[in-house]
């Protein structure tokens, strides 16, 4: 079961780049361990220089964005690998919602699995939202309300978003994906029996 997502209030940090890929979010080398430190891996190539010192110019290193709960970013966020560590790193850093111009498919699916809300704002609101986030610069929180499908910024500025009804329910109630599917065990049994007789090569592998 994933942690349910209802309302998140926190600092919004702008990483206004397109095509941010999974190697940038968590370098592949971070996953070569039984218990990877995903918080340390999070954007490590950008946050840290070759000597391991913080890069002061990198936006997510700025003191006012350090405790961000909402990440704001560009097109095709999370492209590249299917590795889930790139979402676990967000969770480890306290990011519960990502507002992007668009998401890569694998990344979006992994977000849903981990109670991280992927938001694409309705209509052409994104440029206005990005400007607001930059202007606020961490001085005041934003609120993401999944029930109301709305992001609210300082001064009561509202931004609506759409989300697939099934995903909304799963996020609001906490996800038990396997439990939902195991209700269909009889149908899976039946499919296997039918296939074993019609296409036996699919159900049994020669040893």
């Amino acid at each position, binding site marked *: 079961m994933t942690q349910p997502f209802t309302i998140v209030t926190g600092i919004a940090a702008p990483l206004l*780049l*397109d*095509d941010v*890929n999974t*190697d*940038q979010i968590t*370098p*592949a*080398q971070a*996953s*070569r*361990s*039984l218990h990877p430190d995903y918080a340390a891996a999070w954007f490590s*190539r950008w946050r840290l220089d*070759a000597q391991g010192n913080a890069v002061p110019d990198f936006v997510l290193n700025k003191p006012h964005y350090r405790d961000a709960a909402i990440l704001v970013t560009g*097109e*095709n966020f999370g*492209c*590249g*690998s*299917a*590795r*889930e560590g790139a*979402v676990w790193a967000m969770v480890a850093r306290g990011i519960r919602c990502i507002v992007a111009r*668009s998401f*890569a*498919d*694998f990344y979006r*699916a*992994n977000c849903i*699995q*981990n109670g991280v809300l992927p938001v694409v704002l309705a209509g052409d609101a994104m440029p206005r939202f990005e400007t607001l986030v930059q202007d606020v610069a961490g001085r005041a929180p934003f609120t993401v309300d999944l029930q109301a499908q709305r992001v609210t910024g300082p001064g009561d500025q509202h931004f609506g978003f759409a989300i*697939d*009804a*099934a995903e909304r*329910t*799963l996020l609001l109630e906490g996800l038990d*994906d*396997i439990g*939902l*599917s*195991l*209700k*269909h065990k009889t*149908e*899976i049994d039946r*499919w*296997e029996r039918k*296939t074993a007789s019609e*296409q*036996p*090569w*699919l*159900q*049994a*592998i*020669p040893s």
Partner: protein
Amino acid sequence: MTEPMPATLFSKIWDAHVVAQRGDGKFLVYMDRNMLDEVRAPHVFARIEQQGLRLRRPDLTFAVQDHSVATRPGRNDTTRPDSTDIIRATRQAAHTHGVRLFDLDDPEQGISHVVAPELGMVLPGATHACADSHAATVGALGALAFGCGSTELEHILTTQTMALARPATLRLTLHGRLDHGVTAKDVILHAIARLGVDGARGAVVELTGSAVAAIPVEGRFTLCNMCTEMGARSALSAPDDAVFQWLAGRRMAPRGAAWDQALARWRTLRSDDDAIFDTELDVDCAGLEPQVTWGTDPSQSIGISAPVPDIGTAPPGREAAWRRALDYMALTQGAPIAGMPINRAFIGSCTNARLTDLESAAAVLRGRKVAPQVHAIVVPGSMTVRREAEACGLDQVFKAAGFEWHESGCSMCAGGSGARANPGERIMSTSNRNFEGRQGRDVRTHLASPAMVAAAAIAGRIVDVRPMLEGRP
């Protein structure tokens, strides 16, 4: 009586595998074969145990050690100390759960996407789940394959199904006669450059057209593999006689009467003439030159004789990204890409490490020497490929030219096997991603075909392979 609705190849396979529709609207799609690697396996098996669940079909599930294994001959669990724990945990978990593991010393070990088709594990019309974004590689056999994350993999292993929304379909027609020296890798890099890194986002891509038909089966794996770099959910092409011939006699493929029965069914695996796709795109490949990437995503690719593009020609909104990419790659807009000196050459990965890939590189290397300043390695896609290559003497060609001849694994593709370049180095690579830092901090990756990488290794700089293929120095 009404005629059945014309169907796409995708929908024929999808419809035949839908087991049920869940209360939340998602479809449960049966997965005929599952595969997982050592980077995901320890975590996923541990999670399944913690939940008190078990694998539904260990007999249809395979594990492989590929991402983080050393590839230098003589490797073992501890050659790469930072991977020792996950390698051993994967071995233990595979044993506990009764899953066939292609372990470090297994004669069939290799990269999951190379091993699955070459053993006949994945078949035309079958579904395949693999916890890696390049799962779609095997679509070249006419199989429907999905990559997934670790949590989705728990679901797959315990239910033998994936819970999916029905994806959109995209038919990508690649047409035009390919010139000598132009390969599948050049075709797909060109297509990605035309369509963009999100040009197929979320869609199942069917590759078709005269260029696809002319490409040998092993090259079609390269095409399907790289559709991932356009954001595709999956990719496949209709199986033809070349595919059936390629598959016949493979160890896990059906035999005898079962083969004949399967073949009759497989021959129906193509999109009906009037089938409707959500999107239709086509890319002309006539007159295409060998390609090489100049930037930090796979769409930033040009023909070998073209100059590095001007930032002014970037797609709208991508100017800053182009500037950043040129900066990282230390290239000048308007300058030729040919002639850039390289430090390393890597032939390997799930994209380009099958036997035909090694043959095409060897054709360039025969009788030539790698430039003294270039470090060159070749990492066969599987130990099976490695043995086949040795049987035709390719290892001798590579070694004589000055390439290191490795055992199998993902190796330098993601810097996973300890084989990583040094900061600032420039590498010609047959892999699939030229992302910043992927092959090591500040390493500059140029993606290209095996023949182009071999040519660059010889010249010590990025060059057009075609004169070398004509026997010129």
